[in-house]
């Protein structure tokens, strides 16, 4: 359209803009996820959800005077309405048209932020949508599908509403569980009782149908439904329940906020402020009460992320004050030792210890409120897989598991890009075309499984495909051909070692360069970015069977364990993940080779780097460095010379601020026990190799 670049005016102020953007993003995401599901399983509940999302978008865009967006959502609504009335079936043609409209909606919603006309053409999209309606009715469904297993009625849990909200607020996920016992079971009542026992073991059972007493007396029949608050992942609970004898079917899902049981009217007084008045919607649908998709139920509220970050900062200060208090206590104890006032120091010690415990708990609690289930990342994946599969002519099923796995939002922000990259690769390069799979005796449709789980203080995400696997010999040859590895080294490398070559810059084994995954610029950046966050990525592959990538990341980027050192009067924190050992300079086996100093450490030769000088400290050194810190990144090891080693510490990572921006070698700052600042060493860029080209230092997003 000729108006591209033109300035647009909307009827909203900055506060409204924020609300509008948040809500639009939310509803667009609902559509993104739900539209893809539509093809597979168009149940009423899903259609209703999609319709509501489109309707909400129509209402809010009309309210701010975004005519183009309102008109497009209106067209979508018409199509969706036809589907609700079963006049139109969700064929891939219909879903394609809706997805095209959705992509346009994203652009239109962004216009509100930029206030610049993107010039996007929506006329033809609307026409495509309306054209679908002309054929509506011809292929109307006969009878309509009954409610699917997933749409079971959990209204019996109404009485437990406040309990559900409380458990959610405490960080538990609330699961709706439906178990069916095989019809030929001679003892269904006992099986139901077993189910209840397992549920009790998994967490707090908030409601059951039939009632608990009925189940406990063994009088339940062939089905149990329950609402359970648990920290156990749904997949695990699923496995536990499926293990019970004579269980025919287990269905578990997270209970959503707009479940019928969240409906009672008295909740209105507790309702947080509605996102946008929807009464401005000019459609035929009666106005609804509030942003329905993710409405905060009674007992939960929306919190601005900035406020949480602010709280996090305050607790960070509390942690520092506690450290100071400990220091004062020690001094006081030294001064008062033996005197009558020694008891005072003891009292202070007790109080400080108590304050310490509370601070820890507070820090932990705030950290948890920042945690989000990884679902928001995983739900975006089906669309990506569908797009890539369509474009590359593959048939691919995506299976996701571990949606409830929680991680800090700082990690959520950075995990998406690498994950999507690996997923695209899996579909584009991993999975074979259908005809090839058929020839190999594999099912035509390939499967890509994305699984997330927590282990200790890390989150793991695995992307596994059942495709052709990586060709070790091709990688070996290519690495030599590109001059990335010497022929001798490549020949001597084990298959596992050769696999790691795929992370080298400039290596691509795809026979054709596709527009989807691009050239070999990718996995090296993926690895560099992940390692920059103190994470790792590994690959396993079996020829003909498939490939699995596992990404590991710390649960939060807000704090990190570090070795504190001093160099030329500045305190540096070196992330512990990269530190292999420390040793005194005296007695170390340092040699000068061709003007470069090398440390011989057992079998390895490490280049010796003076930390302060390497970071650009041009002030003259006052003392000779006395310690060596051996640090590694991506298999490269260096010996860092420092003046002193101060010890290990948990550090809260803070950004250096926009004015200073990202500096090579420095990843941020941290507040020390005495209130002054130390600098956090960015080991990857210091050690060199991959990582220097990484766009920004991700710590900057945290504090």
């Amino acid at each position: 359209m000729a108006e591209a670049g033109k300035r647009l005016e909307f009827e909203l102020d900055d506060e409204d803009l924020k609300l509008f953007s948040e809500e639009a993003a939310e509803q667009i995401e609902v559509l993104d996820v739900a539209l893809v599901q539509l093809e597979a399983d168009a149940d009423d509940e899903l259609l209703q959800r999609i319709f509501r999302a489109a309707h909400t978008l129509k209402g809010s865009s009309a309210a701010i005077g975004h005519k183009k967006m309102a008109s497009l959502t209106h067209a979508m609504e018409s199509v969706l309405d036809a589907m609700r009335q079963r006049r139109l079936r969700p064929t891939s043609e219909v879903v394609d048209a809706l997805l095209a409209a959705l992509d346009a909606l994203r652009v239109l919603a962004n216009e509100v932020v930029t206030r610049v006309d993107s010039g996007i053409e929506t006329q033809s999209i609307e026409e495509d949508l309306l054209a679908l309606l002309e054929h509506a009715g011809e292929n109307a469904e006969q009878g309509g599908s009954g409610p699917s297993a997933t749409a079971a009625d959990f209204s019996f849990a109404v009485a437990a509403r406040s309990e559900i909200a409380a458990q959610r607020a405490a960080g538990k996920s609330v699961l709706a569980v439906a178990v069916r016992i095989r019809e030929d079971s001679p003892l269904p009542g006992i099986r139901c009782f077993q189910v209840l026992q397992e549920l009790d073991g998994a967490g707090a059972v908030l409601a059951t149908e039939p009632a608990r007493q009925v189940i406990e007396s063994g009088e339940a029949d062939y089905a149990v439904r329950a609402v359970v608050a648990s920290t156990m992942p749904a997949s695990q609970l699923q496995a536990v329940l499926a293990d019970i004898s004579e269980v025919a079917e287990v269905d578990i899902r997270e209970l959503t906020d707009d479940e019928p049981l969240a409906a009672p009217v008295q909740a209105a007084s507790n309702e947080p402020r509605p996102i946008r008045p929807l009464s401005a919607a000019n459609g035929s649908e009666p106005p609804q009460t509030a942003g329905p998709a993710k409405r905060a139920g009674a007992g939960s509220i929306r919190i601005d992320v900035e406020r949480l970050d602010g709280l996090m900062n305050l607790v960070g200060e509390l942690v520092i004050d506690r450290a100071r208090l400990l220091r004062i206590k020690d001094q006081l104890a030294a001064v008062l030792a033996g005197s009558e006032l020694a008891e005072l120091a003891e009292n202070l010690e007790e109080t400080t210890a108590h304050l310490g415990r509370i601070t820890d708990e507070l820090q932990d609690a705030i950290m948890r409120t920042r945690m989000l289930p990884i679902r928001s990342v995983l739900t975006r994946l089906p669309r990506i897989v569908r797009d890539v599969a369509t474009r590359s002519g593959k048939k691919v099923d995506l299976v996701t598991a571990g949606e409830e796995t929680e991680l800090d939002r700082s990690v959520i922000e950075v995990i998406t890009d690498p994950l999507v990259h690996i997923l695209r690769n899996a579909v584009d390069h991993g999975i074979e075309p259908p005809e090839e799979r058929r020839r190999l005796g594999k099912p035509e449709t390939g499967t890509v499984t994305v699984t997330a789980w927590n282990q200790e203080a890390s989150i793991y995400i695995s992307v596994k495909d059942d495709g052709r696997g990586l060709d070790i010999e091709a990688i070996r040859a290519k690495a030599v051909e590109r001059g990335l590895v010497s022929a001798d080294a490549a020949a001597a490398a084990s298959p596992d070692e050769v696999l790691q070559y795929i992370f080298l810059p400039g290596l691509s084994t795809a026979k054709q360069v596709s527009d989807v995954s691009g050239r070999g610029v990718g996995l090296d950046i993926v690895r560099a970015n992940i390692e920059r966050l103190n994470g790792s990525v590994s690959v396993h592959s079996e020829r003909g069977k498939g490939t699995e990538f596992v990404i590991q990341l710390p649960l939060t980027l807000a704090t990190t364990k570090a070795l504190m050192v001093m160099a030329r009067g500045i305190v540096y924190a070196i992330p512990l993940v990269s530190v292999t050992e420390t040793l005194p300079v005296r007695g170390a086996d340092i040699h000068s080779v061709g003007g470069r100093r090398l440390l011989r450490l057992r079998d390895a030769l490490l280049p010796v780097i003076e930390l302060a000088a390497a970071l650009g400290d041009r002030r003259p050194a006052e003392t000779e460095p006395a310690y060596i810190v051996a640090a590694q990144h991506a298999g490269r090891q260096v010996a860092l010379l420092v003046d002193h080693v101060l010890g290990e510490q948990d550090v809260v990572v803070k950004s250096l601020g926009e004015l200073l921006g990202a500096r090579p070698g420095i990843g941020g700052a941290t507040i020390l026990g005495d209130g002054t600042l130390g600098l956090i060493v960015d080991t990857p860029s210091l050690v060199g190799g991959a990582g220097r080209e990484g766009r920004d230092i991700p710590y900057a997003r945290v504090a």
Partner: protein
Amino acid sequence: MRAVGSGERPNLANWRETVSARTTAETSAAEEHVVIFRLDKELYAIDIHSVQEIVRLQPITAIPGSDPWVEGITNLRGRVVPVVDLRRRCGIPESEHTPETRIVVVHCSAGTVGLIVDAVSEVLRIPASAIEPPNALSQSAANAYLRAVAKLPDRLVSLVNLDALLGLDDATAKAVEEAQDALDAAA
């Protein structure tokens, strides 16, 4: 909060004297409400709404490899704030810090930044009639961050454009850089 007006000269040397930014309503279009500080022998003014607070010199951690005019970073109640040495930034020879030395904490397009100045003297309302547009100055590239000059009865005060001063617009950054190089070469 002490009332501030053109007749009064509140003592801003107090520890963490916070300058309230909530004076917008009192400021009419016909005047500028500014914080005045001294650098060597000259007086400069910053719009009071950009000033978050004024603190005494406190420990600053140097950032190796940063621009020479960046003094380092400091801990401002749990926030990491970059600190700029304004003398170095403006090409004025360095001098010892004195008990008068202050860090003026300002908001600009790069977030919160601390400016080391020789002294903060007062908060003033300057009538628009006393402000000369920049073309009245002998404007050179190196002082492009001066947006106007205020002629007060007993002295001249340079009004500073913060973003330009901190090199946040490219043209100024380049010009200041060149001037700096010339100064370095001379030193």
